[in-house]
């Protein structure tokens, strides 16, 4: 009998890439069935498990492209993208990139960013709880130290930018949406913050300045550097208001001081 590793490797190869290779595997069929049929049952179990996962992760993409097309692209994705976790909730992360590269899907240029919003919603939904601190804590700090502050963003938030109105598309495809369904793809890019409030995950629109500011904070730039960068982009940035909003909603969840020179 071949070693266990070879048996398992052969089984997976037959299941994924070489459907005809089961003949070398010394497998025995169920009564009245065949090894090919048995392999097809396992293949169907594995693929439909991942298909269900993709459908639950990417309902807006499925709605945009239709169930049949979604199933076909999903099948290609599953074939090309092995799972790397025993926790199936980690499956599907590369779907946005896959859509962007897929020859039958890449003409819909906005799909990648809409899918990124959906993946961000999933990540945020399962992230640990936000630590919340009070804005009042900052009031006690000496003014000259403020520029050296570094803020940490909560694990329960994600920032996404798109050259397309990806957030508007996402919103227009939510259950119960009653607004205008005509979206002009040329209406410009959008910035989006996905965050969690209690048990609900919500993507919110951000201004360019807010997005730049939060992105720089997430890169561990000091408050001074982040502010300087944003002010070089726009004069229309209200720091006080931005900090207040994103500390109270839990997006900015901690602060430290830059210790370098």
């Amino acid at each position, binding site marked *: 009998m071949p070693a266990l*590793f070879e048996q398992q490797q052969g089984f997976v190869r037959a299941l994924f890439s070489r459907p005809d290779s089961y003949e070398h595997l010394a*497998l*025995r069929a169920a*009564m009245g069935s065949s090894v090919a049929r048995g392999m097809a*049952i396992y293949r169907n179990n594995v693929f439909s498990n991942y298909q269900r996962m993709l459908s639950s992760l990417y309902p807006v993409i499925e709605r945009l492209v239709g169930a049949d097309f979604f199933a076909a692209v999903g099948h290609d994705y599953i074939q090309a993208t092995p799972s790397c976790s*025993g926790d*199936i909730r980690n*499956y599907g992360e590369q779907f946005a990139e896959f859509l962007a590269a897929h020859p039958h899907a890449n003409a819909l240029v906005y799909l990648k960013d809409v899918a990124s919003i959906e993946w961000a919603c999933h990540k945020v939904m*399962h992230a640990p709880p936000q630590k919340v601190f009070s804005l009042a804590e900052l009031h006690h700090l000496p003014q000259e130290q403020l520029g050296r502050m570094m803020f940490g963003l909560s694990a329960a938030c994600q920032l996404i930018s798109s050259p397309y109105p990806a957030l508007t598309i996402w919103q227009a495809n939510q259950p119960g949406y009653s607004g205008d369904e005509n979206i002009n793809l040329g209406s410009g890019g959008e910035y989006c913050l996905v965050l969690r409030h209690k048990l609900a995950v919500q993507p919110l629109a951000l201004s360019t300045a807010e997005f730049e500011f939060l992105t720089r904070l997430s890169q561990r730039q000091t408050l001074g550097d982040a502010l300087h960068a944003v002010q070089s982009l726009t004069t229309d940035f209200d720091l006080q208001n931005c900090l207040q909003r994103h500390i109270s909603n839990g997006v900015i969840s901690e602060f430290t001081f830059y210790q370098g020179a």
Partner: protein
Amino acid sequence: MTAKLSGVGVGLRASHQQQFISERPDVAWLEVHSENYFGDGPALTLLENIRANYPLSLHGVGLSLGSADELDMAHLDSLRNLVERVQPDLVSEHLCWGTVGKQHLNDLLPLPYSREALNLICARIDTVQEFLGRRILVENISSYLRWENEDFNEWDFVAELPKRTGCGLLLDVNNIYVSAMNHGYDAHAYLTAMPADSVDEIHLAGYEVQHGVLIDTHSRAVSEPVWQLYRDAIKQLGVKPTLIEWDTDIPPLAELLAEAATASKILEQEHACLV
């Protein structure tokens, strides 16, 4: 370790969670898939709220005890964190494999019942029990293919696990029936080979038939022959905590509870006969 479970529980699925909080239906205990609560997200908070009112069993689907690959210690670490958080009454996993060369299939695949596989899975069970600091239960799966030239039949392989590792058994009566029908063996011979003292839980679920093969879909009510085999299992093994599983095409909670009531009735009848 907390008290042992008794009576009939149901698998807790996302669509019923709110009802378990707001209506607190009368069920002896609940079981969840461990991986759904890995990490520290709101799902775990919700589970902790529910767990405050029900005994709980953690049932893993992703540890891949029987893979020739190294055991995934990060996965096991997540499981340990969850065990510490919710203090379950039981922790179980499957007699199967699902990973090779770091590729996960996220499915329960059949092991060859060879000496090599037995030595490997027993060493894994030892590692897991040591790491968690507690006994685990291992569950028999359904299969649609089996391996040629095995050293053991399935029931002797299963019976070796508690003998060698001190683990418990989670006996899935539907899986015994499905595999017995598929592979043409006697389900009662399987039951007879089970060490009664090691069986700490029983699973029941519904199967479907596709092209003459029975498939363990967990998508419908428990079938009549499986209820009959369950009665025989209780007669053979004694009264055991029993779980109704339903994972796809999940019905309204009332229907799931009706299945649990049927199992409870059988447990009571068999208990009355046993005492």
